[in-house]
């Protein structure tokens, strides 16, 4: 069995969770005996049994792959949709149906909705996204599988140390992650916050505003860029008073899982992905433009953190690879 991984978002242009997910999944699959190749779009001689696409595949590519005898596995992160309110989702669902009934699937090619029907399997990171795939995009329920992200051993096996006074947030510095709002709330609440990460581009004005704020409050906001050494990153989680991530949208935050693996108490945005994955084992903060409300939740978490129980430990990438291996084997046995 040879699986071809394909993603149309180049890692050289966008770092982040997706890159880690793809690289770790590939390494782990190879460890459990599955041959994985990155799809080289320019190599007409490359062969594979399964096309595992990360994102929403264009329907014509799904059809072409199946025409070549390959099975198609599609793993899209429904980050934006997964963070919408139920009323908006209902409205979208009706609009989707109206649009499709007028134009048919072919008339909706630009949205690539048909790929959910065409794919041999759809992989969701959380139960919430799995539900969305069937509710919003009519993916056949029997084809939808929940396979979460794993965590590297370096985090799961890290040693416990005395926790310090800094809250930590590991993320890309971009609007969706609301780092500037979080930093403003931290200044307001006087809770020390260490932001680990970098912007997609140095020229990003949002990131520049955050950096400016951090420079004005070095006692409360620490920002030294990313930590590339995973051992040092695990130490940072272990030493942190708590982990905070107040993104406006998430799919299944890898950094939250890494922090959980390091037994760090978590404060997360009150969004469906977090509630589905962590339930009552972490603290929540509403996504609000009101800085004083965010600051109040942050302060409450900061004070309580030393006595909060750690969240449950996440799965390893090998666990994830085994789940995927079973999925691939099932897909190869199924006739279309």
């Amino acid at each position: 069995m040879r699986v071809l991984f394909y993603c149309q978002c180049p890692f050289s242009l966008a770092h982040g969770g997706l890159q880690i997910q793809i690289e770790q999944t590939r390494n782990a699959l190879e460890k459990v005996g599955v041959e994985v190749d990155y799809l080289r779009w320019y190599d007409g001689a490359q062969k594979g049994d399964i096309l595992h696409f990360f994102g929403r595949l264009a329907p014509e590519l799904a059809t072409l792959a199946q025409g070549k005898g390959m099975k198609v596995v599609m793993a899209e992160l429904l980050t934006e949709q997964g963070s919408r309110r139920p009323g908006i989702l209902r409205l979208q669902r009706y609009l989707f149906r109206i649009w499709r009934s007028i134009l048919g699937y072919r008339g909706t090619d630009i949205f690539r909705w048909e790929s959910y029907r065409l794919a041999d399997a759809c992989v969701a990171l959380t139960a919430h996204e799995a539900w969305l795939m069937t509710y919003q995009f009519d993916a056949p329920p029997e084809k939808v599988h929940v396979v979460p992200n794993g965590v590297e051993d370096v985090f799961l096996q890290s040693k416990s140390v005395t926790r310090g006074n800094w809250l930590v947030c590991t993320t890309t510095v971009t609007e969706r992650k609301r780092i500037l709002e979080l930093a403003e709330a931290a200044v307001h609440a006087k809770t020390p916050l260490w932001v680990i990460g970098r912007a997609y581009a140095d020229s990003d004005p949002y990131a520049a505003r955050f950096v400016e704020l951090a420079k004005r409050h070095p006692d409360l906001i620490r920002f030294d860029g990313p930590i590339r050494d995973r051992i040092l990153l695990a130490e940072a989680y272990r030493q942190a008073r708590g982990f905070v991530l107040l993104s406006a949208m998430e799919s299944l935050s890898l950094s939250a899982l890494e922090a959980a693996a390091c037994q760090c108490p978590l404060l997360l945005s009150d969004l469906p992905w977090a509630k589905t994955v962590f339930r009552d084992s972490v603290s929540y903060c509403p996504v609000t433009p009101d800085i004083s409300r965010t600051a109040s939740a942050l302060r409450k978490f900061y004070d309580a953190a030393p006595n909060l129980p750690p969240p449950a430990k996440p799965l390893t990438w090998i666990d994830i690879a085994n789940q995927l291996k079973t999925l691939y084997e099932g897909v190869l046995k199924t006739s279309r």
Partner: protein
Amino acid sequence: MKILLNCNVPFLLAHGGAQIQIEQTKAALEKIGVEVEYLRWWDDSQKGDILHHIGWSEPWLVKLARSKGLKVAMTILLTAQCNYSSWQLFKRKLLIRPALAAPLPDSLKTKLEWWVYHLSDQMIVGLEAEKMVLEKVYGVDERRIAVIPLGLAEAYRHAGPAPRTGDHLICSGTIGPAKNSLPLAKLAHATSTPFLFVGKPFDYESAYWREFSKLVDGKTVKHHQHVSTQNEMIALLQKARGYTLMSVSENWSLAAHEAAACGLPMLLPDQRWSRERFGNMVSYWPKKGPEACARVLKEFYAKCPGLPPPKMHFPSWEEVAATLSTVYTRLLNKSS
């Protein structure tokens, strides 16, 4: 100057003109000293100055590349649209122009697939007809559009006159609905015109291929699998009595240019692309009616031995690369 070439249709899923165009362009650019690499989506250390995307790209990818300081050139194939009637283009313009001009938030505009033509630093097309569509329908500034022809391999350019000793017409290209292979094969039987089809389908399991293969009798309709060497293809072309193409639409058609260079008289669809490239030097299918088509095919077949091949300049891939290199240089100079 380093160019990163990218395409969202992997060659392992779809062979054809785009693959030849990309491979030949890369080889020719390297010959004239331009550094070119295929974009490796999984390689976060890959660097470049220009992302040259062949085919349509998601607007977010173009934005991301530009935010990283890369210039973005996009070669777009407007195969269907460049052959639309003026009325069809006008209707399209009525729909698209207001949407593009609407004061929509950036996040929403990025979802409009046509917005990418405005985001890219340089649009590249092969035909004046395609440039006209970009300008008139999508409102792209003509200074940002370059018309760069496709090249032809040296073997075809120096093929010399064709003996044309065979009794059959030849049609080369993918066997599929886009090329109207099935109606053409039926027409061959209806008019008892011997035909040789050279090419393979995208999918040997497809109903289209099965129906087509039923018409292959080895006498009136013969089929030759896709050939692997240019000399073999040239030999097949030069033996034929004439060349026929009945595609639904084309934009440049490398196959037609190869046939013309090999010295064959041609019967082509009466569309903008063919009129622009071949003018009055070839014969055309009537616009409507199977009976008219049968009559024209019979006439073409009968007159073929006395018809001259089109006389025109066939640019080499190196000529194309030199033009492209000028465009790249201008693009990079714009920023400095």
